[in-house]
């Protein structure tokens, strides 16, 4: 009995004071973060730090690049070299960073408006070139930071501050776009799939080439309340009910529609390999091609 107690006493302080192993990737002094309660961005950041930790990527080898918007603020929370750039230009900034310093493990972490509206052209060209980077898009279906306007991923019919009659544009299907443009890894999960997201991020970070992970996130403040989706937790429950895992399925059939009963296809759509921009360039520059 005494021995048992003693053991407990010895163990207890460690349990209560030990730092989470992934905390070293976070700028703790910057917390708490600015995101709304119920937002999925915190979960996505946690998954990414856990993925870095699992892969044992040294903090000093990582460069996190963000654009502008809610997700754009993510770069500021990573205790790595981190760059919060201009709206839409995270990918070309990251391209310069990677080409100038190929040893860096470059992650772009940004939102759907940033990466696919104002920055859409850069996304397809970086994918086409197969620049070695991991692009994580937290998709909340709207421009949250500016107050909830519709964006390039807003489902048809959804209400936003600039679509008061319902959104009459057609949204991008991001996995399909990424696959078509040449991404070597394409996955979609939601913030309900904490472990799946982390696994997808580990896969994406481990691959050499242009990898893409879409993470569907609740946005109770910007999108949810205008579309009667309830609190953040309700959106998560809805994901739980709607998501169907279809690994290897045709990303062209992974469109997201507004119907709250409609299926959302998640999973790993693409996992392939082809030489990166730098690999091919170096072959040509050495005259090997």
């Amino acid at each position: 009995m005494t021995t048992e107690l003693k053991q407990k006493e010895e163990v207890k302080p460690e349990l209560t004071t030990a730092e989470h192993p992934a905390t070293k990737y976070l700028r703790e002094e910057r917390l708490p973060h600015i995101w709304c309660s119920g937002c999925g961005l915190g979960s996505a950041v946690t998954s990414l730090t856990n993925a870095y930790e699992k892969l044992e990527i040294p903090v000093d080898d990582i460069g996190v690049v963000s654009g502008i918007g809610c997700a754009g603020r993510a770069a500021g929370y990573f205790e790595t070299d981190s760059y919060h750039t201009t709206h839409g230009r995270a990918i070309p900034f990251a391209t310069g960073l990677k080409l100038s310093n190929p040893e860096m493990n470059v992650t772009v972490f940004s939102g759907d408006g940033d990466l696919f509206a104002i920055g859409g052209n850069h996304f397809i060209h970086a994918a086409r070139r197969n620049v070695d980077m991991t692009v994580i898009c937290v998709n909340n279906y709207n421009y949250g930071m500016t107050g909830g306007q519709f964006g390039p991923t807003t489902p048809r019919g959804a209400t936003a501050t600039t679509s008061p009659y319902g959104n009459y544009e057609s949204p991008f299907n991001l996995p399909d776009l990424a696959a078509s443009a040449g991404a070597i890894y394409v996955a979609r999960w939601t913030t309900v799939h904490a472990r799946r997201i982390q696994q997808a991020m580990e896969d994406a970070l481990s691959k050499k080439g242009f990898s893409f992970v879409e993470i569907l996130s609740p946005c109770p403040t910007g999108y949810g309340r205008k579309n009667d989706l309830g609190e953040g937790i309700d959106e998560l429950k809805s994901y739980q009910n709607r998501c169907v895992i279809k690994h290897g399925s045709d990303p062209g059939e992974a469109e997201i529609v507004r119907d709250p009963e409609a299926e959302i296809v998640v999973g790993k759509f693409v996992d392939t390999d082809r030489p990166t921009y730098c690999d091919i360039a170096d072959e040509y520059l050495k005259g090997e091609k």
Partner: protein
Amino acid sequence: MSEKAIMTGKYFLNGDEACAEGALAAGCRFFAGYPITPQSEIAERMSKRMPEVGGRFIQMEDELSSIAAVLGGSWGGSKSMTATSGPGFSLMMENIGLGMMTETPCVIANIQRGSPSTGLPTAVGQGDMMQAQWGSHGDYGVIAYAPTSPQEMFDFTVKAFNKSEQYMMPVFVMADEKIGHMRERVEIDESRVKIHPRRKPEVDPDEFKPYEPDDDLVPRMASAGEGYRVHVTGLTHNEQGYPQLDVKTQQEKVGRLVDKVKKNKDDIVEIDTIGMEDAEVLIVSYGMAFRTAMGAYKQAREKGIKAGIVRLVTVWPFPEKKIKEFSKQVKGIVVPEINLGQMVREVERASAGNAEVKLVPHPGGGLHKPEQILESLEALL
């Protein structure tokens, strides 16, 4: 071509090619650009030469991404540049602001053409001079050079890199189509190329603040992967680099962006003067218009007119102290520009009514005749 970064020797180069060679000589190892006339020869030369010296060339999808990649390249640890012309320069403006705000050394060459809009793609212009100072939103100091020959395209590109590293900011080479396409002798001499190294941290990562300035108001830069774990943002930020959105931080940060150029003006500003010892009338000129102004100056002197020239090597920051001094010496000042009146406003401001200031405008697409400038000089006597 040589595999050396600094090709010591004598060459017959056009201005664009000389600009590329100047960049390589200054240590540029990353170039990102997008084709646009009349700068394409810079990108073409870079695509050939950059791999030879172990650097990286990339042709981006537009000018927005070119300048963004250049900023990323610079933070990656390489001296970086891009080159463009008016329409591309306009597209770059937002990220030029990011470069200013994040104090990112890099060089942007603008080979100006007739403007606005698509304008005269293959013909000379100087219509972007004010844009170089005021193009991106907000307040920041600017350094811009105006070369007048292929030799100066080489020399001033080296200077531009050095000043960008010394003051940690994007620096402009404001050339034009004529200077870019003109072919002349260019002498490259490695022993004469002085390189300003990057201002690296001299303290441990724990003590390093990326935006804590030295006495000259300029901070130091830790490249990606060096263990300093910098955070770099276009938001108003404190010395640690973290967003801090209040008036005090805004004043300190933006005030310093202006002051680091303003208070170091004596080190930055360069002009050349000709005939100023006894000048009674003055031509203030820069870039291609200076070459025409030289013709007018010679004709004036032949006619016994005591003319002088102040030629702006740096157009920004504007040499207002010098112009003010000279404005007290002369009866009038003539400013020939290949635009409808841009730097003339600065000359008027600096001379503050001491002398009559007369613009000799040219809309672009061609050059002044020396006689036009001469007539304006005579009219002031």
